[in-house]
């Protein structure tokens, strides 16, 4: 392609639209990665079942909506609670025996993801399900020459609210102080009377619940399928890896990768953009293997 035609095809308003879409993609990837960030950052557990937690969140919203007639806005917090409970059971039954073997948590949670996926398929079948939302969410915004669906704005708002809430939880509460103490030095924290076992348990449950909440939103953006989790989990992992496992890192990494994906997709297409992005991340890790904002203190 000649340089002239390249710039000739450049359309400012379409490019602006791509930038706005990038913010939306970033918010989706970030909200998918939030739970993973907390679980990895606190306990060092690589949770391969995270995508299936997202899927469970979508299905629990579907179930509540269709069998109990719950309005969508109540399904979102309900999905948080249901999936958090599932995460709690999983942590108590399996993960807590594996904290000393991080690679094995990856494998065991992959086994869990197979079980969850097939279990949901047996219960609900493999045909797609749909989540209904209030009609104001399905409309489109027209802001100048920028066009964006209302629900994507809702997702963005919820993401911002969640990040703020998590920041407050980790930096403004007693529980947050305990979590950060356990993160930095588990033995030292334990000697000051912090029950690290309980902290791990609660953070795992919160992380799982966040995945469930994300799932109830993704169920509206996309169709609900037993295999839907696999589509989100790789992006979520990349956000955590690039960010370095901290909340601030994930926010910046989510924003950067989402925006880059959208810009590359504007110039080429969606799948090729993803390939370029992944290769860029490999190169980035060559320069900064610990991620953007790695915790400075020693970890265990």
């Amino acid at each position, binding site marked *: 392609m000649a340089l002239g035609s390249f710039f000739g095809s450049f359309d400012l308003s379409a490019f602006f639209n791509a930038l706005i879409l990038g913010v939306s993609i970033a918010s989706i990837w970030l909200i998918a990665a939030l739970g993973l960030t907390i679980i990895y950052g606190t306990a060092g557990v690589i949770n391969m079942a995270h995508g299936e937690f997202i899927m469970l969140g979508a299905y629990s919203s579907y179930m509540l909506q269709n069998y109990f007639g719950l309005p969508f806005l109540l399904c979102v917090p309900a999905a948080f609670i249901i999936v958090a409970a599932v995460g709690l059971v999983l942590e108590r039954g399996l993960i807590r025996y594996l904290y000393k*073997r991080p690679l*094995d948590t990856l494998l065991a949670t992959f086994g869990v993801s197979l079980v969850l996926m097939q279990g949901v398929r047996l219960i609900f079948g493999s045909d797609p399900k749909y989540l209904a939302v209030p009609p104001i969410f399905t409309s489109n915004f027209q802001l100048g020459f920028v066009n964006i669906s209302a629900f994507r704005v809702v997702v963005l708002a919820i993401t911002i609210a969640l990040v703020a809430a998590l920041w407050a939880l980790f930096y403004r509460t007693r529980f947050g102080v305990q979590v950060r103490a356990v993160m930095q030095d588990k033995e030292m924290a334990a000697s000051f009377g912090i029950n690290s076992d309980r902290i791990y348990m609660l953070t795992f449950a919160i992380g799982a619940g966040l995945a469930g909440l994300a799932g109830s939103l993704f169920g509206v953006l996309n169709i609900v399928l037993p295999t839907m989790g696999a589509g989100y989990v790789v992006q979520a992992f990349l956000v955590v*890896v690039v960010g370095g496992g901290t909340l601030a890192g994930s926010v910046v990494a989510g924003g950067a990768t989402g925006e880059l994906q959208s810009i590359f997709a504007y110039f080429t297409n969606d799948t090729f953009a993803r390939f370029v992005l992944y290769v860029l991340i490999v190169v980035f890790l060559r320069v900064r293997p610990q991620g953007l904002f790695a915790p400075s203190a020693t970890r265990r």
Partner: protein
Amino acid sequence: MNIYHNVKAQWLAYAAFFLLLASLPIFVSDSFLLNQFATYGVFGMLALSISLCWGFGGILNLGQGIPFGLGAYGMAMTMQMQTQDASNPIPPFMLNNSLDHLPLLWEPFRHAALGIVLALVVPTLFCAIFGGLMFRARVSGPFFAIMTLAMLSAWFTLILDIQPYTNGANGITPPSPLKLGDYAVDPYSPVAYWSVLALLLVATVGAKLMTLSRFGLVVQAVRGDAERVRFLGYSVAGYETTVYTIAGFIAAVAGCCWVVLTQYVSPAQFDTTFSLSMVIWAGIGGRLSLIGAIIGAFLIQGAQSYLGDTFLNTWLLVLGAFFILVVRFLPKGLAGLVESILGRLSMPSKSNGNDVAAHRLYPQPGE
């Protein structure tokens, strides 16, 4: 002394195992079944490569589908070009995707020998570059596993996306078997089975010799504690890249064999589930034992083919649950179970010593 750790006994077990496999065509006359067993041999090669990389090198590799798939695509392109001639110069699917001449990417595959060499060299080179980049940056453990997974998913989308060159989701189905010179390799013949078995044998013996060598010792030391090996003056990144690349080469060979046997390749070879199931084979069979990993592949794939029909809906459920149990209670897999049983038999009074060895597997800082 536990007989499990006796090197002579290990070689004897290998010899018995491969003799048993080699005699299989005498008992099995059904050529379809023989072809299926040969594909199990390919899976055995993959499990072997995972065992080498993960069990001995401590590098968990969730993207072994990349060298496998690249090798498979290279072989499929070679076989496809063997069926094209002057009157019919380009594969039919390209015409459907409105290409009027052979793309540059396919040009080298006109020559069968060059095509096969490329099918082996390109994936190996990819592993060397990717592994080199990652290990030099000291990306290791779970982070490396996630990066291989991301790379795999990137390749999957790329292969799907460039439909005019790869026929997208439909994949490539070479219409006739591979011709080496004037000889056509019939995928349903005992010769094909024995060839795959011979390659598996060469790979296994090579890998076993490697683990027994000085190089293998350093690699296992890196698995134990990479930092200490680095302090001793070894180039940890060099050793890690080498073992990762060798595993990739074995997977590329497996990919070539796979296409010769099935005459089919599709992006499903780059699917994350397939690569993760290779890890499951090695994990259940025993990642620290080469032969254990191969047997794991045979067991799981065999069970999937035969029990899978009966438990069609619950197969993944059973496999997942079984894998969780193995990870939780048998980190060394079934081979570890054999090890501890043999240990009990050979020294009934001192079973404690064996427990210590098993226990030392748990907290490995290098992992």
